[in-house]
């Protein structure tokens, strides 16, 4: 308890720390948001709850890491991971997902859980269980008193790339015909077929797109943090938390929620200790859910 007051005191004593926390949080949150956005897509369109989301992220990271080992310039890893993970996503769709699509909640959840286990373990067998990262050897800018705010160039570039990717995907969904077809299929696939939309293609596209987004996120992550075969679950949990908190079908909300959760986690880590980081994310989820529940109750409704 004393600890907590002390930590809060620090925030008041050094207001700049707040800024630092928010910056850090947004940087992490941006990457969570990417994975969550992909999840929201497949969830919304295909009603597939992809538990392998985090493993796609990690796989993307290893793709980029391997390329870097082979001498490819690390930044190129991002688009390359996007492309390669697109392919992997397509293959997984054609072999597994196409058979579980439009089934009830748990079918897809479990199929992808199985996939997640396999992917993590296969990565472990290939890359070993040590943490890996790609060092960009770029400078770090320090701002504020005591150099409290650090802006490693790698992180800044990573976040900018994440933003570009996110904007690209959002525009694509709104403007392009494929994007529209995806949205229509999400809402009523039978009606979409009646209008001549090839839903199978839409599904495959969506799933591959999701894998690609995750892959690119992973490629960014490996430049600024570390990856390890079993870290996927962290990203999966965050992605689910974010999508659930934002509410299904609320794609812009996903990005906001991602940034928000990133920042909230950092605040929580500061105030309660980093041991509580994961707990904070999920408690926050519960709080958001219950808040929305109460609001719905006033509307004489439930959350579904």
């Amino acid at each position, binding site marked *: 308890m004393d600890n907590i007051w002390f930590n809060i005191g620090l925030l008041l004593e050094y207001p700049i720390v707040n800024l630092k926390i928010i910056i850090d949080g947004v940087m992490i949150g941006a990457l969570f948001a990417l994975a969550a956005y992909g999840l929201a897509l497949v969830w919304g369109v295909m009603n597939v709850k992809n538990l392998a989301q985090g493993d796609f992220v990690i796989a993307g990271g290893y793709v980029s890491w391997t390329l870097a080992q082979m001498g490819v310039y690390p930044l190129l890893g991002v688009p390359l991971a996007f492309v390669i993970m697109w392919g992997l996503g397509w293959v997984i769709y054609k072999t597994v997902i196409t058979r579980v699509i439009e089934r009830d909640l748990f079918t897809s959840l*479990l199929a992808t859980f199985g996939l997640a286990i396999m992917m993590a373990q296969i990565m472990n067998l290939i890359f070993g269980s040590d943490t890996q990262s790609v060092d960009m050897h770029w400078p770090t800018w320090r701002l504020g008193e005591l150099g409290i705010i650090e802006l490693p160039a790698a992180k800044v570039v990573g976040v900018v790339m994440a933003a570009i990717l996110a904007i690209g995907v959002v525009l694509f969904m709104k403007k392009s015909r494929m994007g529209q077809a995806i949205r229509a299929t999400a809402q009523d696939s039978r009606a979409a077929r009646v209008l001549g939309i090839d839903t199978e293609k839409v599904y495959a596209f969506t799933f591959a797109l999701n894998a690609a987004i995750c892959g690119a996120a992973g490629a960014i992550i490996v430049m600024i943090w570390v990856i390890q075969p079993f870290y996927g679950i962290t990203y999966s949990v965050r992605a689910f938390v974010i999508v659930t908190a934002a509410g299904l079908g609320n794609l812009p909300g996903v990005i906001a929620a991602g940034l928000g959760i990133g920042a909230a986690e950092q605040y929580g880590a500061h105030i309660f200790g980093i041991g509580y980081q994961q707990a904070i994310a999920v408690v926050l989820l519960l709080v958001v859910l*219950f808040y929305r529940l109460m609001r719905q109750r006033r509307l004489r409704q439930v959350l579904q």
Partner: protein
Amino acid sequence: MSMRKLALYGALLLLTVAAPFLFPAYQTQLATLWLMIIVALTWDMTGGQMGYNSLGNIFFYGTGMYVGAVITITLYFPLAEYTDASRSETFTFTPEMYFTGMVLGTLGAGLFCALSAYAIGPLFFGLRGPYFAIGTLGLAIAAGEIVSNIDILGGGQGISMPVYGGDFEVFKKIIYYVFAAMGVVLIVFLSWFYQTRFGKAINAIRDDEEKAEAMGIHTLRYKLVTWAISAFFVGMAGSISAFQLIHFEPLETAYQTINLGIFMVVCVLLGGKGTLWGPVIGAILFHVFKEVTWNYLLGWQWVALGALIVVIVVFFQDGLMGWLRHRKPEWFGIRVESREARASA
């Protein structure tokens, strides 16, 4: 009940009783098998029969462990000293102390879990579908993380339960029979429970809750009671597991969300959701497969397990029972009478 059915059930019961003597080297695995059956059956109560797919039932398992342990310990010793990392004193339990603790602890764990399910239920049952699944998962994750920061519960080191002083063979049999008895009681209870109006009502909630509400069914009450019953059994199973494992820690043993927490769902899916025997069959198949791969495919065991899950889900989407139902609908009472039959004749 027909004679054949009676004979079948008699044989199964006999096998249950004789199993530890037939396979003495596998007693622990057999006990674990019963644990899997219990958690699968209880998961199916809410997941398969009521349509509330919880990913957080492991919460009751972990809580059961802790409650069982805390009761057992506090009956005789101060908890804080028992769990202190740097204590040097050794606490010993006589057999009487041990068994009193086990009985009271396990009952206490069951009751505590049932009550807490009843208490938190109104919050969670406002959530539907995926929200409920993720919300309950959140509950389990949060509980694990929080317990791992509570020093008096041993924090991240977990708790080491007292060790049974007597013959170890006897101990293994005790654990097995306690689990088995719990499982048999549960099966008998459920086979009655699903036949009652209550059982039908929770099926209605699964199929269309809004409709059920509009029909005046006490949906919340029924949901709470069902979850509480389910939590009661899981909590007791957790407590027994604590005695079986002796040492447990919060994140990987007690609130093990991605192992047992998901495995119980896999078992149910494998066997068939919403049926009485589906979860039992599923648990047996899953457990056997898991043990076999862990024995013979070491290193690749997780890959094999993942592949198994994918294959199950892809090819037996409704589980074995669902597959049978599709093959032999008449076994499940699906039929059209008279005129329709004539029409297609």
